[in-house]
């Protein structure tokens, strides 16, 4: 058997050699495959391996504070504490939840509900049980850290608006970035970031936001962090100093507590906005926590529309305030300020009778302004024609945005035949010119436009300033400053004696008996101004009038500046349904002028009104600065 095996060996040996070659060939092919993967494609796979194991998480930079011109904090950041439950650190989740319920007095079903909602993630990711814990609650939880290591306190930063509703429309608030915002500032804003929405927070987003840091760490295949690789600290945002004077802001806010409308105060020489109030407002602090549905509904369903910015985005008929600019048009056209018009209480133009609110007799221009005589301005309007009125209005900046640095503005309407053909598709009626001459008709202006136009009356050189709240940006670490750079200003040209005649009239409004705002005069301040009342329901709309009987009262305006010889402040106050500008609006205007020109000594203690107004009690003390 052995012998025969030997004789049969040859075919077997051939097969062995054949298979050996084949097997080595297979091994060489395998080696080739590994060569391709490891040597030729090695770098590509090394990148993939790095992507696998590395995660980078941005660290949000602390947002810059917002201060008023005196350094009072308007917006700051506050640590906010959240309570998390680490499921891996407890054997009995139910017992942990019961403990939290009894320790912090939270309803157990709520905690269970939150836990159930959060448990779908990996079990090493802690579940959020509650946020906005008080310092006392944090202390209580931390006192039990040894028995309950599963309860974790997480600290984040929360934006706090120290003045609450008083600065709501000025500062805006933070909110999650919209897809449009992310797209518009790719790289600087990521989805999920809290960014400024409206107001100064939005306008100076880049300045305030700073530069986020980046933390890079190694994770395992479950996403658990294993080690930190690199950490780039965030660069905090700049401090934003506004031109706002909180004293004036609060005076205006207090005044509007029970009123609807807007107030703006500005330095006419520079355009610095000193106060900026739109009422009603809302508490911007609700946006930094989670807004509850009830809170949001309350804002949306409020008939006074608290989200409307009445300084910038609501446009109104200017009423008699407009007469100052009609006076300008008349004087520039060469009409003498001494020329008299006789008022019999009404006058007929183009076959229709136009009424005056009084019987003023023979009035010159300053007197016409002082008593707000309609017949005088009807007459001027008819003589000048609509184009001259419209040109004068445009000279004072009406009909276009003022260039304000915060928030979108409405342009309003300066009507003329061209506008009529384009917007209304019907010709200009001569009778409308008569209405426009006293600020009625299709004229629409914003409070800010009125303020800017009055600044051009206040400034002897007729300069039209650009309103702005930005005073300065300052970096907290480097001390780098960003100053305000004023854009080039337009000037309202005045013929000889033109400005003086108008200012004389405006001065008499407040300082001479018979002036419409004589009641608010402040001896020694020489406030110049103009009141206005606006019919809410136009004659064409009388059919609707009965539907809103409580809303039929006129709007009241006051626009002015002080002191007469060297104006340092322009104020505009608008009170919806305030009936008369003289009684509803002018008092606040005078108070703002007085507060600015004669600053009272700083109050020693916080006023109780601040506490009542929703600002947290802890913050109220900061007002005194």
């Amino acid at each position: 058997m052995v012998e025969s095996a030997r004789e049969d060996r040859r075919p077997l040996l051939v097969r062995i050699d054949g298979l050996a070659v084949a097997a080595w060939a297979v091994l060489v092919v395998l080696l080739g495959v590994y060569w391709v993967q490891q040597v030729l494609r090695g770098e590509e796979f090394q990148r993939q391996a790095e992507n696998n194991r590395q995660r980078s998480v941005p660290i949000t930079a602390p947002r810059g504070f917002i201060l008023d011109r005196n350094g009072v904090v308007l917006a700051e950041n506050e640590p906010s504490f959240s309570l998390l439950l680490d499921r891996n650190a407890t054997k009995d989740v139910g017992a942990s939840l019961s403990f939290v319920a009894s320790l912090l007095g939270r309803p157990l079903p709520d905690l269970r509900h939150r836990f159930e909602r959060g448990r779908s993630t990996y079990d090493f990711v802690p579940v959020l049980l509650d946020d906005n814990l008080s310092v006392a609650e944090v202390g209580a939880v931390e006192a039990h850290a040894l028995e309950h290591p599963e309860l974790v306190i997480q600290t984040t930063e929360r934006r706090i608006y120290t003045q609450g509703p008083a600065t709501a429309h000025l500062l805006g608030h933070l909110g999650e970035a919209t897809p449009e915002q992310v797209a518009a500032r790719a790289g600087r804003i990521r989805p999920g970031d809290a960014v400024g929405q409206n107001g100064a927070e939005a306008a100076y987003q880049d300045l305030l936001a700073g530069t986020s840091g980046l933390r890079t760490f190694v994770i395992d295949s479950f996403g658990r962090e294993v080690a930190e690789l690199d950490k780039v600290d965030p660069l905090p945002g700049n401090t934003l100093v506004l031109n706002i004077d909180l004293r004036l802001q609060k005076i205006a806010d207090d005044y509007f507590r029970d009123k609807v409308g807007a107030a703006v105060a500005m330095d006419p020489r520079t355009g610095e906005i000193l106060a900026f109030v739109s009422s009603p407002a809302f508490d911007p602090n609700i946006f930094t926590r989670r807004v509850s549905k009830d809170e949001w509904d309350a804002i949306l369903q409020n008939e006074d529309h608290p989200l409307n910015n009445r300084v910038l985005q609501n446009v109104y008929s200017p009423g008699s305030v407009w007469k100052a600019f009609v006076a300008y048009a008349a004087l520039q056209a060469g009409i003498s300020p001494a020329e008299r018009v006789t008022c019999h209480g009404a006058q007929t133009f183009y076959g229709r009778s136009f009424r005056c609110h009084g019987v003023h007799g023979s009035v010159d221009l300053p007197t016409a302004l002082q008593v707000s005589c309609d017949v005088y301005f009807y007459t001027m309007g008819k003589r000048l024609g609509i184009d001259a009125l419209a040109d004068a209005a445009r000279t004072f900046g009406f009909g276009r945005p003022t260039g304000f640095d915060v928030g979108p503005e409405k342009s309003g309407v300066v009507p003329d035949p061209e506008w009529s053909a384009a917007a209304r598709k019907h010709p200009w009626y001569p009778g409308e010119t008569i209405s426009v001459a006293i600020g009625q008709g299709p004229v629409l202006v914003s409070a800010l436009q009125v303020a800017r136009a009055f600044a051009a009356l206040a400034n002897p050189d007729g300069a039209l300033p650009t309103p702005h709240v930005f005073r300065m940006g300052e970096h907290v670490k480097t001390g780098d400053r960003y100053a305000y750079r004023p854009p080039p200003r337009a000037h309202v040209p005045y013929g000889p004696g033109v400005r003086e005649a108008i200012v004389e009239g405006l001065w008499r409004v407040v300082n001479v008996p018979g002036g419409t705002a004589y009641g608010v005069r402040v001896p020694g301040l020489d406030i110049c101004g103009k009141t206005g009342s606006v019919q809410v329901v136009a004659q064409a709309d009388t059919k609707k009038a009965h539907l809103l009987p409580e809303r039929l009262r006129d709007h009241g305006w006051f626009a002015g500046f002080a002191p007469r010889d060297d104006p340092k402040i322009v104020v505009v106050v608008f009170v919806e349904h305030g009936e008369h500008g003289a009684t509803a609006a002018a008092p606040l205007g005078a108070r703002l002028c007085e507060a600015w020109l004669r600053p009272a000594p700083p109050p020693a203690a916080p006023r109780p009104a601040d506490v009542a107004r929703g600002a947290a009690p802890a913050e109220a003390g900061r007002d005194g600065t």
Partner: protein
Amino acid sequence: MSRLSEVFPRRIDLKLLAVVLLLSAIGIAMVVSTTAGTPRGSLGGRQAIFVLVGLVGCGVALAVDYRLLLRYSPGLFAVSLLPLVYLPLFGPRIAGARSWLRLGGGFQIQPSELVRITTVLLVAWILENDDRPFLQRKTIVQVSLAVGIPAVLILLQPDLGVTLTYLPFLAAALFFGGLKARWWLVLLLAGAVAAGGSWFLLKDYQKDRIRTFLDPDLAARGAGYQVRQARIAIGSGGILGKGFQKGTQSRLGFLPVRHTDFVFAALAEEWGFVGVAAVITLYGLVLSRGFAIARDARDRGGAMLALLVVVDLVVQAAVNIAMNVGIVPTTGITLPFVSYGGSSMIASWTLIGLVLSVSYRRFVNV
């Protein structure tokens, strides 16, 4: 004693022994690297024990005359099948399969691995008895049954990976026994039909493996995840590798079953193309030494024994290495001597013992 110390080294194939010892040492190192510092702790010590037990099995196989083992192989085969019959019916279900017999002390054994030894012996014995240039029909049937019966029993457990390690026995036996062209044709057709038909017998996860093999990006996070992560591990190793215990893919858990089925990917990651080339070369040397021993064998049975063992081990290695890099579907075939696992290690070392025994007894007058 003096004679033994003189004769032993000369007659033992030290090259083969050294190559296999080296592979085992690499295996221990990789098991340490992939399991040290993980929650269940290093398995390196256990793997070292498996190697020692394997060496004992190797020594036993070497000590007994393989001719004796061949002669009694039908009986050994029959006895060894008993646990394979028992398991699918009564065995404990571990990880979805009834593959394991529990021993004392936390150890368990996979009888399917040990049956490889008796199957090799029986097939070699069947071929010993048919020494014509081409196999007789009767022999073909016998060989098919000798391989097919344990394979089917293991498939019932079910353990596809181990079942597939039996197929090289059949292919090698038919190839070296000699088969005429028309038989190869029949076999090829039968294989194709079986492969097509088996699609309907596969479990869903097995079908997924084949689908993802055909398209690894199909479901990067789903069924294709293993293949993708293994490729990243291998590719990112580059030429020199990331270093011992420095493989991020395996240390951070991205690489699946990294101490067993995918240990080679872990090795490729940490030791680079250099390590890959070294290990592939070592398997090539196993093949070359095994074939040389078969050439020099005293008889046909010994030659067949050496060939069957070596072809089986090297085919397993090649399939595992190909599977790691994703050019064949994931099947659960482990890398002989390197992958973590006691039964496979002991069986493989015992098989090497049989080869060494053939070499040891190559001279007629022993």
